[in-house]
């Protein structure tokens, strides 16, 4: 089976879904799930064919190709699996809404274009698929209209700036080397001058930094994540944003190559070192801003930015441990953030779109599966041992400490402790504490929402206990970049400077829990008590809701709030304001009188004549 067939199925499937929706909504739903699941199977079947190249079209003398590398297979697998789960999740979330046909068309189109991006073997295909992805994302972010339109606009403005930067890089590459094929370029570029390579890194890096929301180019993300329809936010946060990571890997380690990339610059002013510090800043600041959020989706969105920092930090640090950690963290982050957004979406579905963390609580007894999803999700996000997030962060920390970058390690570690505060608030305000009166009769989430949540929760645990499964593939990726492979077993990493054995950890925690549970069992049986039946030290707790949520960390907020404004966002808004003022001034010259226009033309000609007489330019 060839790659052309795969992409044809992906794109054709999305269009066909749209057309089927005109006939019957049931048929459309079934077909959308069918297409997205069959793509997962097809990509899984490609595992053995790594290295295959197909040329599918000739365009103005350029050969457009598709190819499979370990990196693209890894990303494609994650894209298609998470895409399929999101489509399944959407079934009931999107039911009875308007423009559902359009929603599924865009959802599948985005999936298909992401597959196109990772499989493209030349920069022209890459750019075309990249633009398809950006524009369909724009349409889906603004799907809900209202404030979503502004969020979508912010996204597309940033996205276009990134695309233009990338286009400049591509054109210059074509002008110099007469080819756009990624593999041919990677052979040719290695002999280029460092200045030219730095130029390439900066223009491509701008595009990918915008997509991956690295500070200071992150401001589109919180609004876009919060306003997009929740099942699509899952896709957006899971893999779409991480196309930036794919791009960084492609430009840094495939096209330019590790030797050139890691030796660019002098001393502390090395390109990869600066990028690593940008990643570190991206970890710390958004994590602390997340604490101040009262909107469930915005809180997760800021963590989306923060976790992106870990990936960039790992990749940019440029050791085999760091690279493996960065790539693994991309996968892990996708899994748990999709899970978290799905849990929020399940709650939203039952509460009528409620996102405000201060007005909910106690849903654990009403929506246990959504709670389990959120619990596993935040455990992964924190990186608790036995979850997948732990292993990837461990790899990054280890290389930062042992290769002598304690300050980078400090920023990465402190990010974790900041995360705990905000995600506990997230979990507590949604699911724990007291249940408000109005949610007394709330129902469980539908089965098609429960299935993806359970699958993803188990995956978090599976990759946490047996990290060797994905790390084997990641090993082949870093080997293809020319790095030394890690010594990976199924349940850990063996090395002289500190090993990790997750199965022992798992056994120890499990045994500990079982023993304590048995001890608790031998004691007298406890009586179940309702939420009103609590000890208040003599004070009376008021009837109804008395849930401690508003300003959960108030003493701490008061300390940090003045320092945590989104200064970049304010700056961009000011910039937009200045541009508008400038344009308004220019607009004033268009007075509508023909006489004025004639004067302009005469003045212009006079200036030209003067210049010619004075300096004889022409």
């Amino acid at each position: 089976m060839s790659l052309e067939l795969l992409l044809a199925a992906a794109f054709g499937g999305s269009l066909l879904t749209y057309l089927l929706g005109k006939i019957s909504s049931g048929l459309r739903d079934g077909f959308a799930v069918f297409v997205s699941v069959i793509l997962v199977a097809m990509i899984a079947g490609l595992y053995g064919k790594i290295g295959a190249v197909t040329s599918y079209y000739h365009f103005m003398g350029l050969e457009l190709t598709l190819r499979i590398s370990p990196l693209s297979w890894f990303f494609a697998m994650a894209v298609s699996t998470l895409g399929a789960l999101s489509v399944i999740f959407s079934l009931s979330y999107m039911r009875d809404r308007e423009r559902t046909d359009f929603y599924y068309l865009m959802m599948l189109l985005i999936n298909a274009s992401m597959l196109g991006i990772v499989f493209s073997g030349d920069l022209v295909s890459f750019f075309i698929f990249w633009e398809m992805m950006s524009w369909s994302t724009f349409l889906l972010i603004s799907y809900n209209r209202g404030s979503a339109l502004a969020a979508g606009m912010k996204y597309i403005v940033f996205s276009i700036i990134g695309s233009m930067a990338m286009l400049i890089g591509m054109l210059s590459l074509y002008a110099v080397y007469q080819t756009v094929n990624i593999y041919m370029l990677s052979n040719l570029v290695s002999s280029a001058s460092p200045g030219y390579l730095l130029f390439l890194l900066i223009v491509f890096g701008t595009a990918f930094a915008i997509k991956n929301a690295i500070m200071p180019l992150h401001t589109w993300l919180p609004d876009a994540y919060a306003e997009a329809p929740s099942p699509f936010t899952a896709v957006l946060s899971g893999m779409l944003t991480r196309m930036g990571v794919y791009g960084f890997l492609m430009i840094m380690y495939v096209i330019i190559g590790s030797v050139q990339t890691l030796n660019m610059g002098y001393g502390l002013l090395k390109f990869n070192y600066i990028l690593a510090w940008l990643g570190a800043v991206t970890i710390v600041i958004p994590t602390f801003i997340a604490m101040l959020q009262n909107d469930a989706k915005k809180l997760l969105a800021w963590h989306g930015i923060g976790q992106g920092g870990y990936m960039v930090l790992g990749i940019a640090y440029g050791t085999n441990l760091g690279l493996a950690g960065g790539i693994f963290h991309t996968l892990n982050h996708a899994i748990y953030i999709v899970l978290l957004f799905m849990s929020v979406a399940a709650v939203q579905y039952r509460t009528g779109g409620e996102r405000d963390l201060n007005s909910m609580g106690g849903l654990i007894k009403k929506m246990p599966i959504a709670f389990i999803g959120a619990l596993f999700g935040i455990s992964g996000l924190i990186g608790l041992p036995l979850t997948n997030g732990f292993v990837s962060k461990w790899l990054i920390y280890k290389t930062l400490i042992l290769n002598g970058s304690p300050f980078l390690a400090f920023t990465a570690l402190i990010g974790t402790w900041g995360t705990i505060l905000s995600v506990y608030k997230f979990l507590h305000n949604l699911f724990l504490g007291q249940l408000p009166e109005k949610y007394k009769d709330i129902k469980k989430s539908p089965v098609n929402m429960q299935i993806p949540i359970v699958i993803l929760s188990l995956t978090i645990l599976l990759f946490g206990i047996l990290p060797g499964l994905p790390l084997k593939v990641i090993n082949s990726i870093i080997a293809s970049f020319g790095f030394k492979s890690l010594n990976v077993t199924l349940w850990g990493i063996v090395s002289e400077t500190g090993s990790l054995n997750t199965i022992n950890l798992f056994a120890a925690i499990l045994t500990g829990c079982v023993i304590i549970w048995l001890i608790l069992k031998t004691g007298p049986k406890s009586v179940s008590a309702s939420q009103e039946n609590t000890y208040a030290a003599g004070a009376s707790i008021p009837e109804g809701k008395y849930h401690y949520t508003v300003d959960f960390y108030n003493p701490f907020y008061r300390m940090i709030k003045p320092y945590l404004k989104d200064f970049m966002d304010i700056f961009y808004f000011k910039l937009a304001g200045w541009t508008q003022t400038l344009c308004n001034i220019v607009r004033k010259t268009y007075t509508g009188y023909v006489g004025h226009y004639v004067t302009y033309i005469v003045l212009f000609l006079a200036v030209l004549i003067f210049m010619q007489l004075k300096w004889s330019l022409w």
Partner: protein
Amino acid sequence: MQIIAMILSPILALIIGIFFLGLSRKMMARIHWRYGPPWTQPIIDIIRLFSQKSVTHGHLFNLGLILSLAGSIVVILFIPVGRIHPLSDSGGMLVILYMLLLAPLGLALSGGEAANPNTSIGISRQLILALGYEVPLLLILLALMTHYETISIVEIVFRQQYAGWALLSSPLVLSGIGYISIMPAILGIRPFEVVQAPQEISSGPMVEYGGPYLALATIQHALNLFIGIALFVNLFLGGAGNPLFFFIKMLVVFVLGIFINAALPRLRIEQAVQYLWRWPTLLALVGLIVVIVMKSVSAG
């Protein structure tokens, strides 16, 4: 041998932790000119609590407490007690750091389901306090790991047995003083007793526990005392060749801590964070810079 060590080290930790709890009550009483309970009082309490009935607020209420206690026990398996360190080849300092999270997080989950506002306030304070002392603590641990070029705690102890205590060695003395200055916060004793604060929020996270639950929570508290002090003894006082010497070192550290605990009043949570982020962080930061500079000087 491994199995025996796995059973032995949590039991040792439990005995030492509970002994410390009893000792602290007796000593505090004597400093306050009271007679005080016998040092066996916590043991009596735990046995009594196990025979009493209690209420539960749901599955997470039980599970969180179990997870918290299990987390503390697993941390102890990673920390060398004398020469006993059954699990330390499965992960180093980083695993310990992250396993330490399970204890407060488990309590927070359990307390969260209790739906008692006092519990929630206590938990919010606990997490803020943890963030407060983690900043200097991480800097201190990074200084140690950078200096000894390892992420294994056994290796750190081993190196000190040749080269002398880290607390007395020139590059690490500031980090050591930093650790001493945040230890009351790690142990949750006064002046950092903001989480429990019996007079304000009726023991915070503990308020809904009774009977066997309270017994387990007390055991958890005892184990936490053990972990906080054992880490210091291992990281800065060179550990020990056998459990007895290890215990003596811990005892000295703990008794000194009690004197501070007994003499000082409780801070408010924001005062606590302000203190923690000022002097200890400064000490730890300078300590880390000194380590880096000394390292580059000796290398170049």
